[in-house]
């Protein structure tokens, strides 16, 4: 500014001088604060006034003064414009900062909500065609699939085959129409086990109102479903038990009369040999009928188990002998392990269970030996009976344990149902698995005897 003042004072530049003073004011366009051009303008004003008096004597005072008033006006106008420009810039930057912080805060809040949701729920997102685009840890955990396996797939990968086509059609109609769908779904994990989820699917629409993506939020309700199923089963069984007891009594009483009468008639000398064989067949049929009644009663109304420490090995050997005896020559060899730990159970019931499962293995149509494996795990003894037979076609092995569900031509369809009933009564579990390389494995878990 000193240089400009010197030039101003030394040379008669006339109207060109204000340009020199405007230059530093304009410099503040590039930086600094919005009020600084005003300070510079004030300084320039002082210098212009001072310059008027310091001018060499040769110049006319009056036009110079007029000139300098115009100079000052130009300097102040440009300072005003620059500072206004700066002020707008500063305001804009501040506003921008506020917006950015707000955006960051809301992003952070969203992230927190997502984290909380991921902790609390099974979350998945799909595109409009149902292809999975996001899967959280809980989803991977419950489905037992890795994220890589899930992404790019549709939810068909975890379909358990339990729900009807109509069920899923109704689901898709709802969400494709932009409505939220809620319901309970049974899914299948990678290892074939089932889990139930309470599901909410929210469609997100694009500008044209068509779903752009779907977000599924689910919670695991397997335990609740299991408890509900158990309660329903118990009450159904209690009713069935009462009914069966009444029917059994009503059937067995006359059955006893008919059987006894047939025996008397058969023993009479008057009857011929062929009559006697017919009567023998009738008596045999009556005994089969009585056994079926017994089966229904055992399933619907089993006695309370008498739990005691039992030698699993001897029960296994006993059951294997009985199975081979009643299945006849069609039964392959049964390999019973040479050692088995003692367990806690009802001897007769455990024998019944093992016999039933071994008989199933015998009748599975294999000539390869049936293998029996016994392992211990966390206070439970696991008995696995593995055959190389036809296996089972049922997609859902649980259904094989349902009463009256049978794939055999003869039989009441109660064998496995009784097995499960008896095992549950003794605090155990039973499941059927497909064996790798063909065949089936029946896995019976019973409490180990802890004290020697």
């Amino acid at each position, binding site marked *: 500014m000193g240089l400009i003042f010197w030039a101003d004072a030394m040379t008669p530049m006339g109207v060109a001088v204000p340009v020199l003073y405007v230059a530093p004011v304009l410099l503040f366009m590039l930086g600094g604060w919005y009020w600084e051009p005003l300070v510079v303008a004030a300084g320039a004003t002082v210098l212009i006034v001072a310059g008027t008096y310091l001018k060499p004597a040769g110049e006319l005072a009056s036009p110079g003064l007029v000139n300098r008033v115009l100079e000052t006006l130009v300097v102040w106008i440009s300072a005003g414009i620059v500072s206004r420009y700066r002020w707008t810039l500063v305001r804009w930057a501040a506003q921008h900062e506020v917006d950015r912080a707000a955006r960051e805060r809301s992003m952070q809040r969203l992230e927190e909500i997502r984290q909380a949701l991921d902790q609390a729920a099974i979350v998945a997102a799909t595109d409009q065609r149902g292809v999975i685009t996001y899967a959280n840890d809980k989803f991977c955990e419950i489905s037992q699939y890795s994220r890589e396996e899930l992404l790019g797939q549709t939810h068909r990968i975890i379909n358990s085959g339990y729900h009807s086509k109509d069920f899923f059609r109704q689901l898709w109609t709802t969400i494709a129409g932009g409505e939220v769908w809620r319901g309970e779904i049974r899914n299948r994990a990678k290892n074939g086990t089932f889990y139930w989820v309470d599901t909410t699917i929210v469609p997100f629409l694009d500008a044209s109102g068509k779903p752009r993506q779907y977000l599924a939020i689910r919670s695991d309700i397997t335990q609740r479903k299991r408890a509900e199923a158990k309660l329903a089963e118990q009450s159904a069984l209690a009713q069935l038990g009462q009914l069966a007891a009444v029917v059994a*009594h009503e059937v067995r009483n*006359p*059955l*006893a*009369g008919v059987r006894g009468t047939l*025996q008397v008639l058969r023993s009479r000398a008057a009857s011929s040999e062929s009559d006697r064989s017919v009567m023998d067949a009738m008596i045999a049929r009556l005994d089969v009928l009585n056994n079926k009644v017994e089966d229904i009663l055992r399933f619907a109304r089993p006695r309370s188990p008498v739990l005691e420490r039992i030698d699993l090995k001897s029960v296994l050997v006993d059951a294997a002998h009985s199975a081979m005896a009643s299945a006849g020559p069609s039964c392959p060899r049964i390999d019973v392990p040479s050692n088995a730990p003692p367990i806690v159970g009802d001897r007769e019931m455990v024998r019944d269970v093992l016999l039933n499962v071994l008989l199933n293995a015998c009748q599975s149509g294999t000539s390869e030996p049936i293998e029996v494996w016994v392992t211990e795990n966390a206070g439970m003894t696991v008995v696995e009976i593995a055959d190389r037979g036809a296996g089972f076609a049922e997609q859902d092995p649980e259904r094989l344990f349902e009463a009256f569900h049978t794939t055999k031509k003869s039989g009441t369809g109660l064998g496995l149902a009784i097995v499960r009933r008896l095992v549950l009564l003794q605090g155990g579990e039973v499941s059927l698995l497909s064996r790798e390389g063909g065949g089936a494995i029946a896995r019976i878990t019973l409490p180990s005897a802890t004290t020697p």
Partner: protein
Amino acid sequence: MNPTSSCGKFRGGRTEIPASIVVIDDEPLVRWSLVAGLRQAGFDAVPAATFEESSARGQRAPDIVLVDVRLGGRDPVNLMEQIRSFAPGSRILLLAVEGQDVPLSGWSDVDVIRKPFDLAAVVRRVEHALACPPHDVKMAV
């Protein structure tokens, strides 16, 4: 349910005066077959549809009363007391359907035959009951 023969062998029935048995059951075929089967085995068996019928007919107390545990919808304990007063010296064999509860914990000298039965087995149980003094017979439920 193999009756032990530890309490001596039954020697009556076929050769001497036959042991008398009353069979009381509401189901006619049960009654008929038991009577016929026991008669074939040499016993003096008579049928009765109701308790009253058998007590009205009886000149002498039978050796054995073979009776349905819920005869005419009666309470078993009540039934036992009635038989005891009507035939104090008789042995009682109860007929009960398989799986049916027999709430007679205090009556240790009572044997139970399950329906449906095999006639040969019934005859064995009757012979066993005749051969054994009452206190030796264990209740088999």
